[in-house]
């Protein structure tokens, strides 16, 4: 296959890099070395495959490169070298070891930005340069973050294992947080990053992988459903000019209704476990929007109820803000505004707080105050698509 597309390359690397990393960690017993070898192999693949085409067995190709490189760099470390030398392709199939990889990358003893970078590099096979581009960060910063994290894993004895049942809940929460952050980072970004690797793809792939490896964890299913429900509306989120279209103005025929139905079924199955959690509830809220044929058909009563449950499990001012937005439809703008006023202190630096206030002020007949609130929101967001919407509102008559 000649001249593989950007997306095809990303997909193939993602499917194999993590597995190879897991195998090499097992064989060499050294996370940092294994990770370096995989990264070298990925870089070699990205150099050769675009011109030569993706090989028939990309996993074998990556393995061969990593092994050769490993025998080279491990010259002085006899035990690893011997183990690696004995390893022949194809490696005997093992139960998927990537779960351990994920738990190590998302260990709470690592700083959060390092967890994200490490997960992308080790589990998804991104290069340091790709991560840097996706996060608009200097490559040296990302490289340093990864180096430090790997040193900590080795020196502080962060284990390569799946947490015991009694720690699993808390540790899984950390993993889900990394995937969700990754998703948000990709989802909220706009055309200017279109050239970089799509983090939303990686987030969905990670959530799907985790769901496959932990099929009975309802929150994993909840996160996967949440990501898929958001993605199902992707086509309607930007107009042909690349400007953000707000939910109420979106052309709902552009939504991927098949994906919405599938994600909703996934969520319903997860609910059978009767262990509601923040991701299931957020997915249920998005499902309420996704299932409404028109904006006017939105089941706001249900949405307020789901927000109440979410606040009970995970109290947060941002969630209260979203609940207040729903209140505008179940009660009225005045009720929503009263609720919003209680959030003034905690959300003063959050652009959506001011943007929401602006909308309510406009509805309550205070256009000047509304414009001031929009200006405040504009000053607080760095997202160009959101800035465009706000600018437009400020210049309204």
């Amino acid at each position: 296959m000649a001249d593989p597309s950007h997306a095809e390359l990303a997909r193939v690397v993602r499917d194999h890099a993590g597995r190879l990393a897991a195998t090499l960690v097992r064989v060499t017993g050294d996370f940092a070395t294994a990770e370096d070898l995989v990264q070298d192999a990925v870089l070699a693949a990205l150099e050769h495959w675009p011109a030569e085409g993706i090989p028939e067995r990309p996993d074998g190709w990556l393995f061969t490169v990593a092994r050769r490189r490993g025998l080279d760099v491990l010259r002085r470390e006899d035990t690893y070298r011997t183990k690696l030398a004995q390893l022949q392709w194809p490696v005997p199939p093992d139960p998927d070891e990537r779960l351990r990889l994920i738990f190590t990358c998302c260990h709470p003893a690592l700083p959060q930005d390092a967890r994200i970078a490490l997960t992308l590099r080790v589990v998804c096979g991104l290069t340091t340069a790709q991560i840097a581009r996706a996060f608009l960060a200097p490559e040296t910063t990302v490289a340093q973050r990864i180096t430090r994290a790997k040193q900590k894993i080795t020196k502080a004895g962060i284990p390569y294992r799946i947490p015991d049942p009694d720690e699993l809940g808390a540790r899984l929460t950390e993993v889900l947080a990394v995937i969700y952050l990754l998703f948000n980072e990709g989802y909220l970004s706009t055309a200017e990053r279109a050239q970089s690797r799509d983090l939303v793809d990686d987030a969905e792939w990670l959530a799907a992988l985790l769901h496959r490896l932990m099929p009975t964890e309802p929150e994993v299913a909840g996160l996967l459903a949440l990501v898929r429900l958001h993605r199902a509306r992707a086509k309607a989120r930007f107009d042909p000019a690349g400007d953000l279209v707000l939910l109420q103005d979106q052309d709902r025929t552009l939504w991927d209704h098949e994906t919405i139905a599938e994600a909703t079924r996934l969520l319903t199955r997860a609910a059978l476990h009767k262990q509601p959690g923040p991701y299931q509830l957020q997915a249920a809220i998005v499902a309420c929007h996704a299932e409404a044929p028109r904006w006017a058909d939105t089941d706001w009563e249900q949405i307020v109820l789901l927000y109440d449950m979410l606040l009970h499990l995970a109290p947060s001012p941002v969630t209260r803000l979203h609940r207040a937005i729903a209140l505008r439809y179940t009660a009225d703008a005045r009720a929503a505004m009263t609720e919003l006023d209680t959030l003034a202190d905690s959300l003063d630096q959050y652009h959506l707080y001011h943007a929401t206030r602006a909308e309510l002020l406009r509805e309550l007949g205070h256009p000047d105050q509304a414009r001031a609130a929009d200006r405040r929101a504009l000053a607080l967001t760095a997202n160009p698509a959101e800035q465009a919407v706000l600018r437009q509102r400020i210049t309204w008559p």
Partner: protein
Amino acid sequence: MRYVLLFVDTEPFAADLQAMEPVERERAYARVGEWMATNRNKIRGGSKLQPPETATTVRLDRGDPVVTDGPFVEGKEVVSGYTEIEVADLDEALRMVQTWPGCPVVEIRPIES
């Protein structure tokens, strides 16, 4: 892996301990003693330290050695003791520390091997 657990006192914690009835304080110490006993097969040594006002610091990076009274960092959080442990990995150390009944902050630092 070997680690040192650095036990860190905070001002409110010290004040609480001070305000306790003697019996209550005895109980608090007993809980720490129990924790030590429970984990004794992982503990390789360590000590409670005298309070920070007993510390003396020597600085050797400014020409002649400079001797000053007090700990090397003046702060509201002070190291009040340490324990060396030997466990499989960081997760085991974390598990151990999570049941620590004494001071409110514990730093886990691997020992260079």
